[in-house]
């Protein structure tokens, strides 16, 4: 049985349209017109128990709408969805015990009270015995390094501490399926690392399934082997992160440090570097090329033979850049014009 299964999942909703200005306002008051937004257009995928999957897409791609359907917050307009063996929108008690949703921008903790009070409510609502809830709180406090923070009012906690406390509240009932929507949003680098490490450890300890959206690529590269990419409500990629990089960026970046600065006439000669690859930039003695992976060995050999160089480094282009290109093209047919 899959932990998450979506078949041809769709969501459409009407949105009122208003023209600017007085006329538009009057028309909007007298006769409101609506347009139908197709937020999710037939998305299908499934996730095995224990998998950690990155859910990527630009703003407005339909990620959060999909997560809302998977958690039962909203009803799908079409298609089938099943999470942990349940139809989410029925919101059966057994289902709600098995899942959680953490939203970076929305909080469940009571703002003016210590997080310990909200945890007490969650323990009662999820029917976790007192001793067991104390054990879990202790364990999560240690994993999240929240010692001494649970008795302070939530409003007095830093953003990072608050996010960790939110995670704690969301995980107290030990859900089997975690939906995380931008869990590191707005956190500083240290807090991001701490949250990531916690999620990795939680997944290892409990075998929970995690579906994660994030605009921080480090969250994805460090936690997820598999990514699902949606664009304008449609699924455009589902597979291994390495394959995504291979497919969407079939080139590597070669940086060469020359022994001597290039003369201006060579820099201005368009064909001078073409034999090695596509020039990204020339900065004094430093030159960056993009070289197709299949032509890498030949190009490096030529560079070493032809040029007087001090240093040479070969790297993959940053994942952010690759994903950005995927979003820009909006399809899996992207093929860079390199070499």
């Amino acid at each position, binding site marked *: 049985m899959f932990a998450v299964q979506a078949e041809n999942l769709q969501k459409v909703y009407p949105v009122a349209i208003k023209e600017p200005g007085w006329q538009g306002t009057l028309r909007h008051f007298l006769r409101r017109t609506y347009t139908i937004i197709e937020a999710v257009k037939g998305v299908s995928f499934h996730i095995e128990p224990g998998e950690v999957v990155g859910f990527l897409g630009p703003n407005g791609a339909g990620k959060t709408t999909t997560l809302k359907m998977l958690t039962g917050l909203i009803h799908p307009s079409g298609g089938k969805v099943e999470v942990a063996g349940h139809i989410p929108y029925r919101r059966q008690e057994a289902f709600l015990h098995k*899942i959680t949703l953490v939203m970076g921008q929305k909080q469940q903790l009571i703002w003016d009270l210590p997080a310990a009070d909200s945890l*007490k409510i969650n323990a009662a609502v999820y*029917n976790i015995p007192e001793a067991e809830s104390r054990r879990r709180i202790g364990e999560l406090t240690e994993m999240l390094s929240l010692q001494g923070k649970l008795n302070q009012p939530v409003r007095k906690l830093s953003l990072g501490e608050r996010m960790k406390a939110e995670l704690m509240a969301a995980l107290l009932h030990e859900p089997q399926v975690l939906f995380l929507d931008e869990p590191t949003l707005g956190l500083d680098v240290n807090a991001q690392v701490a949250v990531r490490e916690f999620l990795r450890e939680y997944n290892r300890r409990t075998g929970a399934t995690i579906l994660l959206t994030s605009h921080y690529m480090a969250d994805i590269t460090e936690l997820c082997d598999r990514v699902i990419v949606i664009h304008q409500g449609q699924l455009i990629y589902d597979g291994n992160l390495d394959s995504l990089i291979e497919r969407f960026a079939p080139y590597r970046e070669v940086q060469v440090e020359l022994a001597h600065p290039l003369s201006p006439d060579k820099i201005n000669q368009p064909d001078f570097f073409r034999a090695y690859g596509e020039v990204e930039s020339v900065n004094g003695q430093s030159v960056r090329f993009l070289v197709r992976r299949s032509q890498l060995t030949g190009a490096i050999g030529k560079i070493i033979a032809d040029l007087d160089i001090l240093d040479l480094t070969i790297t993959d282009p940053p994942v952010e850049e690759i994903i950005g290109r995927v979003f820009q093209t909006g399809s899996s047919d992207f093929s860079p014009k390199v070499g």
Partner: protein
Amino acid sequence: MRFFRIITTLLSVYYAYMVEYRAELIFWVLSGSLPIILMGIWTQAASSGEFGLSSIDFARYFIAVFFVRQLNVVWVIWEFEKEVVEGKLSPKLLQPLDPGWHHLLSHTAERGARIPFIIGLVLLFFTLYPEAAWFPSLPNFLLALFVAILGFFLRFLIQYTFAMFSFWMERATAIEQFWFLLYLFLSGMVAPLEVFPDRVREIIMWTPFPYFIHFPAALLVGLPENVGRGLLVMFIWSAIIFVCNRWLWRRGLRHYSGMGA
């Protein structure tokens, strides 16, 4: 057992939450002083002897109204509307507990935090106006208290039902604001129903309004009331509104888009 634990936990946490607002509570209690102002007007008017109630009767009635009104203050529609419009309902929908319990028990806990202030103000009133002081008999007091609590539940249920329209409307509070106008006049808050014409009063007694304020206040003061009919009408309205509430809740959830969440 689980349900009992949820109730006691929510009550204790929301009581702690309300105590955080102890300074604001004094102002909230004072903001319910309209009956005290109306008392001044009616005790003056009663001196003409046209209303069948004496000045002291009016003074006692309005202090009882003040007390009962403090017990049935409800604001659930403002909170629920905000939750729906801003998507803050989502975290509560993810828990295996109807969100209504959070609202009901936060109101109940607030009553606990408010009571000391209410008692203080009533005692202050009796000190300043000792002629109006009275002690209702224990059975009358308990019956009035019971009815006032039922009145609170009914008022909560009705406002929570209006709140369900937040799923379709941007500002469901507008319904409550209109309803409040009827509530103000028909509940006995502005004037005791004894001063209404008999036929009008008879019709009003079949609506839910008098049971929020007039009915418990009159029992507290010792005015003659048909207790059996009162309880029956309250029960019937509660049942009707409860069914509507659950129907709207189920329909509304289909409409919910979890905006911003």
